[in-house]
C-alpha cells in the first residue's frame, strides 16, 4: 500500500473537530480481504485497503468494475462473500448515521415536483416514522437546512421544484441533503457525470472545499479524474476484481494498470500532462487526465 502524501495537515484539522476516541490510530474505512460475488460474477477478489480520516479518495476504473459496489459495500447494502468491511471500526451496516450518500443520478428527478428544500430536509429526519409535527425541533431543522443550502450555494433556487433545475443545481442540493445530517464520511457516486465541463470543475471544487471545512472523509466515484485533481488525496483504481490505491502519478502508470488489468495497457501522457489509458480492449480506452507538470 502506498503512503498518503498530501493529506496529513488536513487530518490534524479534522481530528480536533471530530471528537472520537483514537481517531488518528483508527482508519475511517478498512477493507480486509473483501470478495464480492454478484450472481455468478466475481466483482471483487480479496481486496484490502485502508482510508484515513479526512482523506479525499477518487475511485476510478472501467464500467462494471465494481466502483458502485464499493459504495454499496460501505453502505451495508452489499454483503461481502468473504472478508470484512469496517467503517469507524465497526462492521458496515445500513442506515449508518455517520455516512452521507449521493447515489448515481438517473433521469428520475427530471419530473420531481418537490422543492429542493424539502428534499434536503429529508436528509435530517426522512428516516424517522410519523409526520414530524411542527415545533421547536422542526424550526431547528429548518435552520440547519438553511445553513447547508447556503453552504453549497443553492439558496437562490432551493424553493423551486427539483425537476426544473439544471444538473449542476440538482447536484448541489443532493450534496446538501447528504451533508445535512453532519456525516463524517461522504460517499458520492459519479457526482460529475452529466454535468458540463465548467460545472464539473465548479462542483469538484465545492465538494473539496466542503469536505475540508467539515473534516469529512470523501470517497468519490468518477469517470474522469481531471476536474478532481486539485481536491483529491489518493486515487483508488478498480479493475478486474483488483484494487490499487495511491497518488495519480503512482497508480495511473503503464506498469500498475497492466498488472491490474492483467493485460498490456499503456499510459500515455501528452505535452499538457494529460494521461490516456490505452489498452487492447475497448473497456480501458477512456482517458484519464493527470496533473500538469
Amino acid at each position: 500500500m502506498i503512503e498518503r502524501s498530501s493529506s496529513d495537515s488536513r487530518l490534524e484539522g479534522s481530528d480536533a473537530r471530530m471528537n472520537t476516541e483514537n481517531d488518528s490510530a483508527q482508519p475511517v474505512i478498512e477493507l480486509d480481504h473483501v470478495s464480492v460475488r454478484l450472481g455468478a460474477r466475481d466483482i471483487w477478489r480479496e481486496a484490502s485497503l485502508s482510508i484515513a480520516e479526512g482523506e479525499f479518495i477518487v475511485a476510478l476504473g472501467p464500467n462494471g468494475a465494481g466502483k458502485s459496489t464499493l459504495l454499496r459495500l460501505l453502505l451495508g447494502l452489499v454483503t461481502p462473500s468473504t472478508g470484512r468491511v469496517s467503517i469507524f471500526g465497526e462492521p458496515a451496516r445500513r442506515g449508518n448515521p455517520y455516512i452521507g450518500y449521493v447515489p448515481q443520478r438517473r433521469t428520475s428527478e427530471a419530473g420531481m415536483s418537490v422543492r429542493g428544500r424539502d428534499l434536503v430536509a429529508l436528509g435530517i429526519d426522512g428516516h424517522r416514522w410519523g409526520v414530524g409535527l411542527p415545533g421547536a425541533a422542526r424550526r431547528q431543522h429548518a435552520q440547519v437546512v438553511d445553513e447547508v443550502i447556503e453552504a453549497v450555494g443553492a439558496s437562490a433556487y432551493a424553493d423551486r421544484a427539483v425537476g426544473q433545475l439544471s444538473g449542476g443545481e440538482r447536484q448541489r442540493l443532493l450534496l446538501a441533503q447528504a451533508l445535512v445530517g453532519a456525516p463524517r464520511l461522504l460517499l458520492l457516486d459519479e457526482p460529475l457525470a452529466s454535468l458540463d465541463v465548467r460545472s464539473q470543475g465548479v462542483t469538484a471544487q465545492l465538494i473539496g472545499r466542503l469536505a475540508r471545512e467539515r473534516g469529512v472523509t470523501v470517497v468519490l466515484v468518477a469517470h474522469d479524474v481531471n476536474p478532481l485533481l486539485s481536491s483529491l488525496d489518493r486515487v483508488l483504481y478498480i479493475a478486474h476484481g483488483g484494487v490499487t490505491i495511491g497518488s495519480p502519478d503512482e497508480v495511473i502508470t503503464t506498469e500498475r494498470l497492466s498488472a491490474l488489468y492483467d493485460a498490456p495497457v499503456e499510459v500515455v501522457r501528452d505535452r499538457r500532462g494529460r494521461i490516456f489509458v490505452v489498452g487492447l480492449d475497448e473497456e480501458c480506452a477512456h482517458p484519464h487526465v493527470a496533473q500538469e507538470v
Partner: protein
Amino acid sequence: MALSLPSLTIAFAASRLGGPALTPFSWNLFADVQQIFQYAFMRNAFAAGTIVAIVAGVVGYFVVLRSLSFAGHALSHIGFAGATAAVVVGASPVAGLLVFTVGAGLGMGALGKRIYGRDVVIGIVLAWMLGLGVLFLSLYTGYATEAYALLFGEILGISQRDVLITLIAGIITLLAIAAIYRPLLFASLDEDVAEARGVPVRWLGVAFMALLALAVSEAVQVVGVLLIFALLVTPAAIAERLTTRPEVAILLSVALALGITWAGLAIAFYAPYPVSFFITTIAFAAYVVVRGAQAIRDALAARAQQTAVVA
C-alpha cells in the same frame, strides 16, 4: 338503502321513496343544501363521499409521486373480479373487493419498484381479472345492476352500515399513512438514499400498496372501478402542479377531491344524469383549467423575458 336501478335520477328516486317533495334548484344555495340533506341517502352519500375524497386525496399524492397510477387502476379492476366473485358465492361485494385488492396490492408491492416491464405484467393481469369478473357476473344471472354499480359507482345506494365501514377503513388508512409519512416520502422521492439511510424501502412499498388497495376499495363505491382515476389521481396530479411543498400538495389534493365530490353530488341531485359523470367531468375540467392556466402563464413569462432581452 338500495335503488333498483342505479341509473335513476335522484329526483325520480326521491319521489319513489316517498320522501319530501322535491323543489327544483334555486340560487338560494343554503336552501338547496338544506333540501339535499333532507334525504337520508343523500346524507349517506355525502358522508361516504367525504371520507373517500379525503383518503383518495392523501393516498393519491403518493400514487402520483411513485408513478403508481396504472397500478391503482389495475387494483380497481382486480377488485371488480373480487367483488363479482363474492356476489357469486353470496358474500358481500365489498368484502370481495377488499380481499382481492389488498391481496393484489401486497403481491405488486412484493415485486418491488424496480421490476422491469412491470406495466406490461400489470396490464396482462388486469385484462385477465376483468375477464374473470365477466365470468362471475354471468354465473350470477340477472344481476346486471350489481355490475353497473361496481363499474361506475353507486354512491346514492350506499347504506349507513357501508358508511360506517368506509369510515373505519378510511381512519385506518389515514393513520397508517401518518405513521409512515416521512420514510414513505423519502422512499418515494429518492429510494436509493432512503435505503442507504436505513429506511426499509421494500417493506414500505408493500405497505403502501396495501394502503392503496384499501383506498381503491373505498373509492370504487363512489366512482366505480372504471372511473377510479377521477378521485385517486386527478386531484393529486392537479395539486402536484400547483405547489412544490409536499404538505401543501396533500392538503390541496384533499381539498380538490372534496370539492369535486361535493359538487358532483349536489349537481347530480338536480340533474338527471349519474353522479359519476359529474365527478369525473368536474375533475377533468379542473385539470384542463389548471394546465391551460399554466400554459398561458408560461407563455406570458416567456414573452416578458423576450421583451426584456430585446429592451
